[in-house]
């Protein structure tokens, strides 16, 4: 079964997400901040990353996404951003090097069925 890396500094969220994912037999590894996430990715080679944005600092998750996009070893790993950031709105795409490419974007609190469906979609 696919291995999923859950990156979040909220232990409660990690615990709940782990339970949801393990109910579908996904293997789960975790990290609590961006630095740990990159180290775990290089070691564990996950099939997908669930990535929170605000962790040690606000852009922590985005910096991880940026670093993944620039790293040949990591840039193929699909990323789903999971965040409680508010006031986010979809816009027409405009070229900018600030954009971090991700597979999907989910708002907290998450719906377990929705999360599993999106993971399946991202894993293809």
């Amino acid at each position, binding site marked *: 079964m696919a291995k999923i890396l859950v990156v979040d500094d909220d232990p409660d969220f990690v615990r709940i997400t782990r339970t949801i994912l393990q109910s579908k037999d996904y293997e789960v590894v975790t990290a609590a901040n961006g630095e740990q996430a990159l180290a775990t990715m290089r070691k564990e080679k996950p099939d997908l990353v669930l990535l929170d944005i*605000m962790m*040690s*600092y606000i852009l922590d998750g985005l910096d991880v996404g940026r670093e993944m996009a620039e790293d040949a070893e990591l840039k193929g790993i699909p990323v789903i951003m999971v965040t409680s950031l508010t006031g*986010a709105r979809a816009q027409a795409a405009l070229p900018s090097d600030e954009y*971090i*490419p991700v597979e999907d974007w989910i708002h907290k609190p998450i719906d377990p069925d929705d999360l599993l469906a999106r993971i399946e979609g991202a894993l293809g």
Partner: protein
Amino acid sequence: MSVQLKDTGSVVQIRWIPKYTLLERAMHWLHTATFVPLALTGLILYLPLLQPLAQGAAGQFVRLIHRVAAVLFGLLPVIYLLTQPRRLLLSIREFMFDKEDIGWLKGAFGYYLLGKHTAMPPQGRFNTGEKMNGLVIILAWAAFGVTGLVMWFGRGIVPPTLFRWMVLLHDLAMIAAVCMFLIHLYLAVGHPLMWAGLVSMRFGVTSASYAAEHHAKWYYGPKRARQMYEARKKAASEADQ
């Protein structure tokens, strides 16, 4: 900041950053709602000019309000600790002073009062002024708690000298807390650069652009914020030459 979804090509742009939780905001406003009556009734009891208001039935009423507000004021941090201990510990960690605070103190007068927009050291979720406010509140809370309990229940029980010291310490803590409250009130309500602080304490969020400018260490992380600060300082220094 923006995130692009690969399949659709659409972009999610983040405009608002959560800064304070609901409980943090509730605690802030309850703290205000208990501190203001405490300060007003305390001043009535403290200032000779207002002594007529502290006499007779009115005086008893003032003392009653002071004591009820004091109990609520004292309980608020305990409620916070019991309901969200992890969040409280995280906030205390964010309130710790570091070397950036020295640079902020050096530049704050010119920046906030004279409009000198020189490079200010990057700040975390709480800037140095907010940390100082927090420190005064914590110390005053502890001082009010100890001295207030002795003044309330200790008359005739503790030695008179100790009782007088408690009264003096209570008065000094009140002066410090009221002064800090007035500075905080001016910065939060009256200062043009700080309006966003009031917005975030009302709605819980702050704009991404405000967070990037005023809380760079919280926004960009310590390493990148420091690099950006050094670059700005260098550019300003070169422009001056």
